[in-house]
């Protein structure tokens, strides 16, 4: 039986939670990364490395790495720069993807950096320059505090030259030639604001791809849930039946293309679970209907938020779901969301949760 490891990025460092085999008896280790704010931490199945994208207010941005499951850590920012003559600065590194010896990290100002030596050195891969409106992305007026720049990266499972990137507040893009060219993938998405360019101007909070059928994608947008049946070429809104159209976290079932999870939040400034009631919502029919899942979650005065990278799902036969909150709790379900238990409390504000099964 494999070990299950949760990688938890928080405002004050990275934590690991481990279960030996049956997804119980969880043990917490950390904080790691010297308490730096960790925006996203991932596990590379190929190398066994953990990477953590971090940005210190004092000491700048870097990617931490551990090659021994958190026993020792090192950091590097070598090459994480737009160059001395470029006015853009790397104010933070916000999202990671690792596959087949390549590690990508997304940065603000918007750019994607690549490492081929397990995070020891980095080089600029793409800024998606030339995309409609890209000249505006680097305007400081369009980079408010908290802006993530590139907020998501996802490799294709089979084609090493294909991956997707989200530019925060702009939209989803696909490359099939390893970032030489890009295609906006936002057709059919809703946006309730003026957009100077037809193809972009969408606020993609989180997108996921079904492991059971790669043509099926889901997306939690700033305004509405959306589904794609053609690998992101077109999108259809599936918000009906959810308590709000707003949220960040999302997860796709590993074995059923029609099952998908989301955590709706209050769309106002609070951005907490509506009315203080904790709940995850699940569809088993690709968004036609939704079920509220709240057994074991706090039902009174639970004004907690869950951010875009803060929910994960494992790939067991009966998959487990895990999410972390803005107030430092980690909740888990090992029965596809039907019941939940609290794994940890009193952690720093949680910004990301990923799960790894390690043999």
């Amino acid at each position, binding site marked *: 039986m494999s070990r299950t490891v949760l990688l938890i990025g928080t405002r004050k460092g990275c934590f690991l939670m481990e279960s030996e085999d049956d997804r119980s008896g969880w043990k917490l280790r950390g904080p790691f990364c*010297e308490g730096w704010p960790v925006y996203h931490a991932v596990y590379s199945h190929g190398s066994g490395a953990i990477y953590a994208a971090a940005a210190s*207010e*004092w*000491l*700048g941005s*870097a990617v931490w790495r551990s090659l021994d499951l958190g026993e020792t850590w090192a*950091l*590097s*920012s*070598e090459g994480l720069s737009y160059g*001395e003559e470029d006015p853009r*600065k790397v104010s933070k590194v916000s999202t990671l993807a690792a596959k087949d010896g390549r590690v990508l990290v997304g940065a603000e100002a918007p750019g994607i950096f690549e490492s081929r030596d397990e995070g020891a050195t980095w080089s600029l891969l793409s800024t998606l320059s030339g995309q409609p409106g890209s000249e505006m992305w680097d305007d400081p007026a369009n980079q408010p505090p908290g802006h993530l720049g590139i907020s998501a990266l996802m490799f294709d499972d089979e084609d090493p030259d294909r991956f997707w990137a989200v530019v925060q507040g702009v939209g989803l893009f696909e490359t099939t030639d390893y970032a030489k060219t890009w295609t906006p993938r936002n057709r059919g998405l809703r946006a309730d604001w003026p957009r100077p360019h037809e193809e972009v101007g969408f606020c993609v909070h989180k997108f996921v791809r079904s492991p059971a059928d790669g043509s099926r994608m889901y997306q939690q947008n700033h305004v509405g849930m959306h589904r794609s049946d053609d690998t992101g070429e077109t999108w259809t809104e599936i918000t009906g039946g959810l308590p709000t159209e707003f949220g960040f976290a999302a997860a796709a079932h590993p074995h059923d293309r029609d099952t998908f999870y989301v955590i709706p939040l209050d769309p106002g400034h609070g951005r907490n679970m509506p009315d203080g009631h904790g709940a995850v919502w699940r569809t088993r029919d690709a968004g036609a209907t939704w079920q509220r899942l709240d057994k074991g979650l706090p039902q009174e005065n639970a004004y907690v938020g869950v951010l875009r990278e803060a929910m994960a799902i494992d790939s067991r036969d009966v998959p487990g779901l895990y999410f972390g909150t803005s107030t430092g709790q980690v909740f888990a379900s090992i029965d596809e969301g039907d019941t939940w238990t609290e794994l940890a409390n009193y952690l720093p504000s949680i910004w990301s949760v990923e799960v790894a099964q390690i043999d």
Partner: protein
Amino acid sequence: MAELHFPSTLTPLFANFERRVDVDAATVDEALQRLDERWPGLRDRLCESKRELRPHIHVYVDRERATLETPLAARSRVDVIAAISGG
């Protein structure tokens, strides 16, 4: 030789880092370059670019606020401070 003093937050980031170190350099910038050769990556933790210190990193030479260009005398004391900010 100028005498440099660094904040404790740097200690865990570099192997065998010394918070107090003597450097023969003409400016703050040159001193940090010398130390970056000894502890690769140190300069990037303190400087946003070749020309600027990071916003919350303050450097004082003989108790006066300094920049990367500030000259160092033979016995200058240089204090590198992680500013009190954030939470």
